[in-house]
């Protein structure tokens, strides 16, 4: 590694791997290091041995759970929006050829003590048990407004100024009840809290459109999921980077970032080796002194031997428990997947619960989620800090990603990718179709 690179990337989380791939394709000479002996950092999918080593050091994994390699356990409950930006990046970089995707079979929301399917469009809203007959007609009118709104046609505005009127006032205009607002804002627009109500309606409309267009893509739910777990995503982008010349070193300790007299990073030291580079990218764990905590997340990974109750025995689901429904300030998310995604042996199911910590007893905060799962074979929980960088990296050339956040998808992560890319290169990320390998 005693060489000079354009960019050194520290950590193989998804943000780092996407950037590594994009920069290698751009022709940059990239060195990519991870202190772990596996790919993915916080977006890894672990086998049983790795899972036990992380959550219960010193404890043997039980033989009853079968072969190690039959398990790919995600650490975070996230899915890809079928029409979202990560899907877009996967297609344009051709990383889709390394990864096979399946749909998530259903999307559910918790309301008044039970869970019900989230309507994806006007027609589904009319069938939903979530609303009374009159409320359904109001919701249909609202969704028609969302869908028919055209920037260049003021007659579609319905007297709403999308950049000035708050979402709260729009809901009021359509006469929607607070429970309906809850599932529209939290289960369709996928907000984690209620701050959006006071903000202009534009962003909420765009989020609902993304939800609806994602459902329209493959049906069933707006989500897709990679076979063998989310950890395939960083691996796929790492492969892209390697194909374009990126050098990979796992299981390589990073002892320090080396700075010049002017405070600008010039390289990375590992043992007695120093690799030099003009720019350094890394996740917050490699830059402890340059990040601040913006909150804490509690997550629990549960192994089940049955589908999640009341989800029509589906092989995969998302369940959202909106904050108001359980008197919280942040939603609780549950991601349910199973052996059809090659993440566990036949007969097993995985459910991952997460929420933003609000109290001194975080583990009790996911109880409403646990209650929905029925009997649990094994569960692993932990509390993690969420970090973000203190500066934008342009002064010291250290570009630090944000921690994997509480959202149920990757839209904020790809925002971070695009943002870091722009700060590093000075230009917007423009995705170009890669030439087909066969043609080269």
């Amino acid at each position: 590694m005693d060489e000079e690179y354009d960019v050194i990337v520290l950590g193989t989380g998804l943000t780092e791997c996407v950037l590594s791939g994009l920069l290698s394709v751009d022709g940059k000479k990239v060195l990519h290091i991870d202190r772990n002996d596996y790919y993915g950092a916080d977006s890894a999918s672990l086998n049983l041995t790795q899972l036990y080593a992380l959550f219960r050091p010193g404890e043997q994994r039980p033989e009853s759970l079968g072969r190690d390699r039959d398990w790919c356990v995600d650490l975070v409950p996230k899915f890809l929006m079928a029409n979202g930006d990560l899907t877009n990046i996967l297609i344009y970089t051709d990383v889709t050829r390394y990864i096979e995707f399946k749909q998530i079979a259903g999307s559910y929301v918790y309301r008044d003590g039970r869970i019900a399917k989230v309507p994806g469009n006007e027609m589904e809203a009319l069938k939903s048990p979530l609303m009374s007959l009159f409320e359904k007609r109001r919701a249909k009118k609202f969704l028609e407004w969302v869908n028919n709104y055209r920037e260049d046609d003021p007659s579609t505005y319905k007297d709403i100024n999308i950049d000035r009127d708050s979402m709260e006032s729009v809901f009021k205009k359509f006469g929607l009840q607070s429970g309906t607002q809850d599932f529209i804002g939290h289960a369709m627009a996928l907000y984690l809290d209620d701050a959006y109500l006071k903000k202009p309606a534009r962003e909420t409309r765009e989020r609902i459109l993304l939800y609806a267009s994602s459902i329209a893509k493959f049906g069933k739910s707006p989500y897709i999921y990679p076979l063998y777990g989310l950890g395939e995503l960083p691996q796929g982008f790492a492969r892209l980077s390697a194909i374009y010349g990126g050098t990979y070193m796992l299981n390589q300790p990073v002892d320090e970032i080396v700075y010049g007299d002017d405070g600008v990073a010039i390289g990375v030291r590992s043992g007695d080796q120093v690799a030099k580079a003009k720019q350094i990218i890394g996740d917050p764990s490699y830059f402890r002194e340059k990040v601040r905590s913006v909150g804490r997340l509690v997550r629990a990974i549960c192994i089940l031997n049955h589908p999640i109750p009341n989800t029509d025995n589906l092989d995969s689901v998302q369940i959202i428990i909106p904050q108001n429904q359980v008197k919280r300030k942040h939603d609780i998310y549950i991601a349910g997947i199973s052996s059809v995604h090659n993440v566990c042996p036949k007969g097993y199911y995985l459910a991952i619960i997460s929420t933003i910590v609000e109290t001194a007893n975080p583990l009790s905060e996911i109880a409403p989620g646990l209650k929905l799962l029925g009997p649990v074979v094994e569960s692993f929980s932990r509390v993690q800090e969420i970090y973000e960088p203190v500066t934008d990296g342009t002064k010291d050339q250290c570009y630090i990603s944000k921690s994997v956040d509480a959202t149920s998808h990757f839209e904020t992560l790809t925002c971070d990718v695009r943002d870091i890319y722009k700060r590093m290169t000075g230009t917007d990320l423009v995705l170009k179709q890669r030439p087909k390998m066969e043609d080269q």
Partner: protein
Amino acid sequence: MASNTAPKNVVTINQKLVLLGDSAVGKSSLVLRFVKDQFDDYRESTIGAAFLTQTLPIDENTSVKLEIWDTAGQERYKSLAPMYYRNANCAIVVYDITQAASLEKAKSWIKELQRQAPEGIVIALAGNKLDLAQERRAVEKADAEAYAAEANLLFFETSAKTAENVNELFTAIAKKLPLEDKLNQARGAVNRGVNLSEARPAAQPSGSCSC
């Protein structure tokens, strides 16, 4: 995995082939010779072309389309991802007959395959750089052959440079693949996953995002 393609009545079965072996033993050169019938003496490391395909006829009704995965250099610091081994149907583990240590490395790659790759994977051991046998041979053919027989591997000595035994190596692998199940699946042809590329978005969104 399996798909029907023209011409009529010939079923083409996709099979994933992975290459393994120490750096600089000639993994990429073997593929380049096999797929494009080219050789480059000064090819340094693998850049840009780590996914090639080649179709081989098995009999008049069946072809095998090999999707060949090169390591893209990720083996150098023991950083190959589990993704590399997933669903691999066959593997070529390459060593350099002029470097004794490279055979030992090949043996450890075979252990790694047995740990990480699907059961029933067809493995071939290839001793490359046969063109240098006269002056610089360091591994006796009989020794490697005996090891391959014991471990139930196909075995060839090859030269990517002269093309000796290269087609023979890939053809032997294709012939040894257990295709019965795949054929039945291909005839039933159901693709379970979603095809992202077919659902390509009409227009690429701008650089801005809504958060």
